[in-house]
């Protein structure tokens, strides 16, 4: 995200009085508004430097002394008591001659007369004013937001309200899945409440975490019994007898609530400053010495905006307070902004995030995952410097990374070992992973999942296993979760030098697993979501790439029909838009024409669409249907609505799915026709349309061996003969033309359809993503396919049943859903910009 430069940066040089006394010789009067963490720390810093300099008065809205606000979470969770988190006791104020006026908020600043006025009417003059009002919790103005029982999480009074509510057990809804919300949720569930967290974004703590870590966090909190609703947009807070009763979402879901905690964000508390005419943007504008637009007024803490940034964590406040005190005591230094890091204070969950991990040009991601230990580590390196880190499950090295990051140290030396942490990386020679592995003893365990020792792996390699895959199959090392793949690869290098054979193609550079491994492990480990799969199989990138995401999406869809939720953003544009993108960014639309049949109604509808949306071209495709070209993405849903109205559905000309079923006229009309090829083609298309496949799939039915429908260059082809139907598979008329292999011959249409369904399912379950039936059969052999279908007499029936089951979920027309408004944001512009001269 872009950083706006604060226009006030460095503009006013520090005010620098020689001595701190006023004309009448008494000490200057420093008034502090805000008895919180920054205000009191600033005073401490000033006292350290020059205890006699100021006569200090502190106003505090809260009726108590200064305490450690960040420890309110442990207090709520019952791990600490208020007494334990007090920072400055009443004695401290007395000993330092500070007048504390607590429970009496300042309501006005008069910069003319240099006085502040408190709620009680008390007027206090100042020579120097320090504003440290912190921030106010943001409250989303939904209906019911001001009902009794709706609380925020900012001070002790809030905590007391929550504890009171928790007395009666019951249920709580926390709105906001950021740091604050999750700590509130944790505390309340420890206090015995049924907690639901409603978060607007799809990822928890999205400001600090990436998708992978956010998913792990969600899974853990759910395991602990919290209900986590991501992508949940609050519509209203439901009332019952004048008190909150539930939270209702825009999608209609409703969650019972005896208390609602709003933790959706904070706003710098700038009201006073604004009213007094000080420069205010998001926060009170300050320069590098924490001086506001009025040289007599300083500001510090969450309420300020420095160089365009407002902070919400304590670390930066400490730096601000130092610079402020240096300036206020006449030895100006200057604050230059802070890099922040985040930890979540939820016992048992280790989570750390710092810096920038948004990737991009010149950035290199180094990712390490250990599913067994539930660990995800990601560091981002740019130009040999560490610029960001996300750690989940093992944060031991968090501070080390943060240190490298802040110091901007050159990490090229330890690059290879960086992700393994300080101990490993600073291990000199061991910084080279190979050397480290070489140093391991023979009985050291390499593969935890299958208990394989280093000695055993080397033995296996010496016995002839020259590739990662050979090792996996022969001694099972790294065959399960893959976390030891690196070690095994090192052992291969050490034992064989350059004679290593590279194994079968991996899915992509994000993993060391092949397509077959991934498909097997999805079932073995019951993987049902992309982030889960990437974690369990140790993906080496945070969120995959454009080759693995679509593949994984298909594999999960094929493995868990009806259960897996299709991931739009992992689909190639044509499948996301349900149309074929053209070189000019417009789309082509191909409605289904069952078996190549059409009628006046359909043709009229198509003609009308062509005119209505002035499509520049219509053409008969090679698949026996019509293709309408040049439709803009905004118009697609309307076009589809018109076509639906005439009974037409998507032809999936864009999909890795059933494309067309070509037919010839057959026995209905043709003098040579032996069977009703047209009728069978229509039935086959009605059975198979909508099914997602590893690649596109084409069918044809010819009424006789003259084969007008070109059935023998299709993925599944039927050639009718007098005695029945010849079923052919694995044809391709494309880049490498391949004629089909004859699979078998059957007597009835029913058998032909059953075997078609079974063959498709076998292909769907076994082929690699983007592998058409032709190369698939070339790879595994026709015998393998025949065995899969016919060895077990039940196989055809079982496969066909699995196909029909998954078809239940696939055969609803995507065009109809889009025409009805689903995913409309994919079709609509955000807005249109019209500069005046064009408006």
């Amino acid at each position, binding site marked *: 995200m872009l950083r706006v430069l604060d226009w006030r940066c460095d503009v006013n040089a520090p005010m620098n009085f020689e001595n701190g006394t006023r004309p009448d010789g008494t000490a200057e009067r420093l008034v502090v508004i805000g008895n919180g963490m920054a205000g009191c720390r600033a005073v401490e810093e000033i006292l350290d430097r020059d205890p006699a300099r100021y006569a200090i008065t502190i106003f505090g809205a809260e009726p108590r002394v200064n305490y450690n606000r960040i420890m309110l979470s442990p207090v709520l969770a019952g791990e600490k008591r208020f007494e334990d988190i007090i920072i400055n006791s009443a004695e401290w104020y007395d000993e330092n001659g500070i007048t504390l006026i607590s429970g009496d908020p300042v309501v006005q600043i008069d910069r003319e007369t240099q006085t502040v006025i408190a709620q009680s009417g008390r007027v206090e003059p100042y020579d120097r004013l320090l504003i440290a009002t912190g921030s106010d919790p943001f409250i989303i103005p939904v209906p019911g937001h001001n009902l009794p029982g709706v609380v925020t999480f900012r001070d002790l009074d809030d905590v007391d309200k929550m504890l009171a509510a928790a007395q009666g057990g019951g249920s709580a809804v926390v709105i906001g899945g950021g740091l604050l919300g999750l700590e509130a949720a944790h505390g309340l569930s420890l206090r015995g409440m049924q907690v639901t967290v409603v978060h607007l974004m799809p990822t928890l703590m999205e400001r600090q975490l990436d998708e992978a870590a956010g998913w792990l966090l969600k899974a853990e909190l759910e395991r602990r019994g919290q209900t986590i609703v991501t992508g949940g947009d609050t519509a209203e807070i439901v009332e019952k007898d004048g008190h909150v009763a539930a939270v209702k979402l825009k999608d209609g879901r409703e969650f019972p609530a005896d208390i609602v905690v709003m933790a959706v964000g904070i706003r710098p508390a700038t009201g006073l400053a604004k009213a007094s005419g000080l420069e205010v943007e998001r926060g009170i504008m300050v320069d590098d010495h924490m001086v506001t637009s009025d040289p007599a007024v300083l500001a510090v803490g969450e309420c300020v905006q420095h160089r365009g940034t407002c902070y919400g964590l304590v670390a930066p406040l400490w730096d601000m307070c130092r610079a402020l005190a240096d300036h206020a005591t006449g030895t100006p230094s200057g604050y230059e902004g802070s890099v922040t890091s985040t930890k979540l204070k939820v016992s048992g969950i280790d989570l750390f995030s710092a810096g920038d991990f*948004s990737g991009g040009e010149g950035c290199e991601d180094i990712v390490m995952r250990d599913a067994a230990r539930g660990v995800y580590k990601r560091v981002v390196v740019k130009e040999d410097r560490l610029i960001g880190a996300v750690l989940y499950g093992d944060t031991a090295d968090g501070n080390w990374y943060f240190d490298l990051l802040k110091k901007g140290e050159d990490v090229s030396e330890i690059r290879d070992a960086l992700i393994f942490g300080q101990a490993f990386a600073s291990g000199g020679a061991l910084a080279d992973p190979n050397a480290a592995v070489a140093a391991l003893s023979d009985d050291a365990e390499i593969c935890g999942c299958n208990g394989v020792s280093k000695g055993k792996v080397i033995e296996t390699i010496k016995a002839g296993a020259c590739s990662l895959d050979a090792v996996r199959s022969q001694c099972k090392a790294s065959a399960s979760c893959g976390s030891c793949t690196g070690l095994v690869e090192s052992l291969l290098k050490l034992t064989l030098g350059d004679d290593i054979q590279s194994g079968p193609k991996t899915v992509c550079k994000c993993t060391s697993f092949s397509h077959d491994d991934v498909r097997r492990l999805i079932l073995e480990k019951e993987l049902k979501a992309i982030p889960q799969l990437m974690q369990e199989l140790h993906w080496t990138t945070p969120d995959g790439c454009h080759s693995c995401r679509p593949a994984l999406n298909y594999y999960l869809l094929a493995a868990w029909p009806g259960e897996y939720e299709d991931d739009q953003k992992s689909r190639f544009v044509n499948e996301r838009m349900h149309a074929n993108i053209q070189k000019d960014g417009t789309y082509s639309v191909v409605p289904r024409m069952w078996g190549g049949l059409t009628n006046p109604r359909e043709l009229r509808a198509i003609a009308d669409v062509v005119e209505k949306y002035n499509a520049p071209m219509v053409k008969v495709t090679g698949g026996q249907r019509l293709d309408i070209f040049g439709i803009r993405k905004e118009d697609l849903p309307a076009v589809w609505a018109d076509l639906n109205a005439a009974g037409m559905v998507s032809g999936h000309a864009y999909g890795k799915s059933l494309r067309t079923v070509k037919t010839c006229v057959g026995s209905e009309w043709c003098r040579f026709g032996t069977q009703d090829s047209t009728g069978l083609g229509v039935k086959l298309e009605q059975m198979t349309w909508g099914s997602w496949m590893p690649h596109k799939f084409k069918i044809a039915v010819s009424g006789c061996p003259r084969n007008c429908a070109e059935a023998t260059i299709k993925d599944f082809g039927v050639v009718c003969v007098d005695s029945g139907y010849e079923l052919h598979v694995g044809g391709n008329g494309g880049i490498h033309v391949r004629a089909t292999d004859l699979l078998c011959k059957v007597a009835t249409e029913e058998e032909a359809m059953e075997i078609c369904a079974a063959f498709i399912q076998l292909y769907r379950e076994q082929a690699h993503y983007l592998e058409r039936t032709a190369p698939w059969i070339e790879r595994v052999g026709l015998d393998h396919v025949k065995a899969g279908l016919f060895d077990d007499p039940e196989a055809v029936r079982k496969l066909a049943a699995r196909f029909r089951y998954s078809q239940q979920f696939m055969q609803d027309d995507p065009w109809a859903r889009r025409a009805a408004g689903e995913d409309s944001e994919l079709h609509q512009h955000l807005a249109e910009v019209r500069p005046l001269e064009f408006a």
Partner: protein
Amino acid sequence: MMIGDWLDIGPVDQIAPGNARTLPVRGGEEIAVFHTLDNQFYALVNKCPHKQGPLSQGIVHGGVVTCPLHNWNISLKTGEALGDDEGCVPTIPLRVDAGRIYLLREAVVGQKSTKAA
């Protein structure tokens, strides 16, 4: 001052992570606004440096979008083509504030117009 220099194009939740949305500009180039899976926001002119493919329609991974036409990988941060490919598309300064997305006005309306409005 923000109001003057920054163009408010609405709340962040209009763009789901991993997606992009478009912003046509009269007399200028259409802009694509991206939301990555690690919740960063970027804005680029919606034209691939290769053959003007609409980048908004590509698959987003890390800080990169893969062009839907011929799979060039474009850095969302710098607009530069990654790997062996060469070319660069203009980026539009963007900031997110209090849940809303802002584009630097001069970068949006000040574009050198190539297509007539």
